[in-house]
């Protein structure tokens, strides 16, 4: 196995393969910076190149791309409050407030370093867990997945600030809005209001950008000035960010491990990974007072996790041929096109290729973070430019990002609608994150609940995995509520 790993490293760093890896990284970084575009767009862009390509180069290129999107998507999240991709929603919660205080450089350096370390830990976990992954993935049945979605919803209690009732209402609204469109368990359409667009419900990209970006634009324009409200030299925070990561090194390891573990759950990882990690870091922090206002730990946790998940997400894709996300589905398609048939025996028959994947993740993360560091200087200057000057350009980017969801005019209406909803919520102090969590998990909760009750009736409640996750939910929710009351007292 060590021989295979060493040989794979030699192959990946050979000029030919490294060139393709670098191409993937470059495209991935570019896609990540553009709001609303994610791994699926990047994979679709590079997939035609894989026809006739040797699997090692193709794998290196596509994995390189997928590994760094969650590195560069930090730019729009932190500097503009716009979710760069679905993996950077929670980074906004503390990253953007810190940037507004003039600490954008500190946040970016911490985020890139965490992304790199998270990605490396993810690659390590992937290489260690591969031989034992089959029984683990198969042990997680639909009942356990349902409980994990409940755990995701349970994070709402942590993210609701001092008013859990408002958080609950916000979640309920998200769950309701997420139920628009095709019912996940039958061929009927709900609340499509007579329009084709809503046959498939609102699109996450447009909803997330509308909820978080539009209200911030309005706020900055009405306040006047730049994104950062304090004039500070952006350069001074770089070392501080690195010191933050060193100080919170155990946090990085903890959340990278959580990210890897959640990442290998097909269909679930992407949806909850950010918020679960953000919720966990708040839950176990002694001083919670600065979360949501600008606490660097609120950046470190999700950024460590979302890069680590790429390693985890490869497990169901390469071992079962079962992709956990749209981008993994395209990677799977490319593997098949290149003549690589995924399966549990891949680790035995193509160990070289499996380790090419592992090394590609590791090297791409180092490369991606290094390039992002280099780009940080010029890009972060955006935060001190008067906002009215860059607003037209950013608005075009944001609109294009939202429009990428289906390229239907409905995407723009969704952006506008959720922009207004987000602005009202911001003005009235109703937390927006719970709405987004409810929206993201709505379909999953309905689907899994239906399947579990159809298949197991009530018997599923006695499964050990269900009980363990249930206990964790009770601890998280109970302690959040109890802790809050205690703090109030």
């Amino acid at each position: 196995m060590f021989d295979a790993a060493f040989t794979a490293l030699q192959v990946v760093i050979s000029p030919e393969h490294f060139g393709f890896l670098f191409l993937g990284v470059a495209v991935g970084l570019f896609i990540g910076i553009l709001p609303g575009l994610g791994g699926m767009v990047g994979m679709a862009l590079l997939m035609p190149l894989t026809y006739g390509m040797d699997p090692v180069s193709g794998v290196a290129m596509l994995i390189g791309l997928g590994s760094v999107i969650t590195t560069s998507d930090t730019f729009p999240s932190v500097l503009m409050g716009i979710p760069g991709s679905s993996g950077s929603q929670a980074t906004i919660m503390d990253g953007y407030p810190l940037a507004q205080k003039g600490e954008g450089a500190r946040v970016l350096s911490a985020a890139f370093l965490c992304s790199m370390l998270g990605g490396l830990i993810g690659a390590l976990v992937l290489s260690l867990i591969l031989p034992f992954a089959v029984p683990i993935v198969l042990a997680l049945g639909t009942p356990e997945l349902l409980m994990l979605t409940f755990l995701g919803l349970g994070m709402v209690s942590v993210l609701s600030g001092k008013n859990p009732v408002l958080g609950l209402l916000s979640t309920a609204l998200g769950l309701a809005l997420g139920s628009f469109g095709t019912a996940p368990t039958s061929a009927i359409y709900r609340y499509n209001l007579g329009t084709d667009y809503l046959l498939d419900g609102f699109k996450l990209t447009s909803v997330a950008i509308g909820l978080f970006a539009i209200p911030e634009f309005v706020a900055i324009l009405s306040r006047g000035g730049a994104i950062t409200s304090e004039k500070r030299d952006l350069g001074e925070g770089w070392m501080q960010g690195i010191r933050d990561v060193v100080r919170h090194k155990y946090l990085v390891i903890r959340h990278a491990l959580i990210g890897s573990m959640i990442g290998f759950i097909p269909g679930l990882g992407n949806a909850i990974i950010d918020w679960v990690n953000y919720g966990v870091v708040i839950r176990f922090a002694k001083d919670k007072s600065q979360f949501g206002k600008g606490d660097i730990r609120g950046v470190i946790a999700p950024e460590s996790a979302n890069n680590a998940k790429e390693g985890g997400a490869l497990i169901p894709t390469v071992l079962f041929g079962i992709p956990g996300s749209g981008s993994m589905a395209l990677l799977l398609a490319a593997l098949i096109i290149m003549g690589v048939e995924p399966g549990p025996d891949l680790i035995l028959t193509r160990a070289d290729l499996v380790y090419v994947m592992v090394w590609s993740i590791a090297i791409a993360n180092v490369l991606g973070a290094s390039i992002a560091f280099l780009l940080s200087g010029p890009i972060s200057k955006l935060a001190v430019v008067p906002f009215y000057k860059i607003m037209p350009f950013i608005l075009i980017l944001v609109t294009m990002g939202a429009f990428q969801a289906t390229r239907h005019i409905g995407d723009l209406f969704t952006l506008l609608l959720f922009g207004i909803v987000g602005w009202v919520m911001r003005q009235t102090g109703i937390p927006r994150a719970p709405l987004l969590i409810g929206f993201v998990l709505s379909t999953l909760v309905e689907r899994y609940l239906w399947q579990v009750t159809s298949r197991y009736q009530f018997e599923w409640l006695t499964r050990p995995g269900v009980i363990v996750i249930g206990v964790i939910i009770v601890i998280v929710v109970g302690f959040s509520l109890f802790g809050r009351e205690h703090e109030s007292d």
Partner: protein
Amino acid sequence: MRTINFYFCRFLLLAGVALFVNITTVNAQFYSDKRVEVIIPTSPGGGTDLFARLLADGFDEFLEGNPTVIPRQMTGGGGLLAGNWVVEQAPKDGSILLASTGQTTLRQILRQRGMRTEVSDFDVLVAVPMTRNVFVAAGKGVETRIDLPNLRDGDGLYTALIDPISGISFMLQAGMTDMALRVIKGYEGGKDRDLAMLRGEIDIIQQISLQYDATSRLFLDRGAIHLWNDGLLDVNGNIVRDAGFPNIPTFPEAYEAAYGEPPTGMLLDVYRAIIPLVGNAGKTILVSSQAPAEAKQALRAAVVAMANDVNYSARVIDQNRGYGLLYGEELDSALTRARNLSPEQIVFLRSYISEQYEIEFEP
């Protein structure tokens, strides 16, 4: 007389050459510097997506005039969104192609609620066949295919359907064998169902032939039995084995081996009628029937060029488990057979589906 014939022949020859030159020039001019989009109504990575991307690549390479051809995802409403958009809003100038499936055509024929397109709204340019395999898990009373009647006993078999029309052949097979199915709904795609089978959450599964891969082998490793393949309809109207699965019996063969007589009745008639639709022309590329004739001509010429190119054909055959592109007369013949559901069969199928599943049809 001889002179007249000579000149007449020369005229005909010249006219033929001129026509040929004209057609190819028109073809070349028609798409010159244009942009063509292949609309993909399904999510990335699945069979239809892969097929559409392969064909988009083919049109990009072989369509005269060297237009830019790009695949574009437009998912939603089980393909309704894309179909309605192409018919109602997209330009009808030949710049929009739609990847589709036999199931979508069946939805049009059955008039599923929400679908505002008709079969006549489109011309089919090219198709590839696709069949389906059925596996039953170990421990369900079926050691070999002869034990098929045992599937009627017991508490029923859990299975997963994405929606009844996408699994229509399996629904009809279940009806003919009278197996007690307990359907779990809500699975997103074929891979989701594969995982449910591996986890032991479902007992019997229908899997498209394009997904016969590592997961299928895992089923077999765990003792599952590969019961049958849907089969394809030949020119004589017989259901024959899929060349990609020469050792697997078709459903009627498996039925006859187990029950001692071939299946009969309305369910079999409907089954025979839908197989060309969901099997022989399982995946298709469509263009609006209102597109200009020159556009259709150029697109069809590109399909012929794809089929005649050794390297491209090899890619198609490799991706489609041994099947190449279906086009020209062969395609027309398959489509004629595919669309011959009688009014009685349509009424029967609508009520058969809606009695068992929540699915709505236009009156």
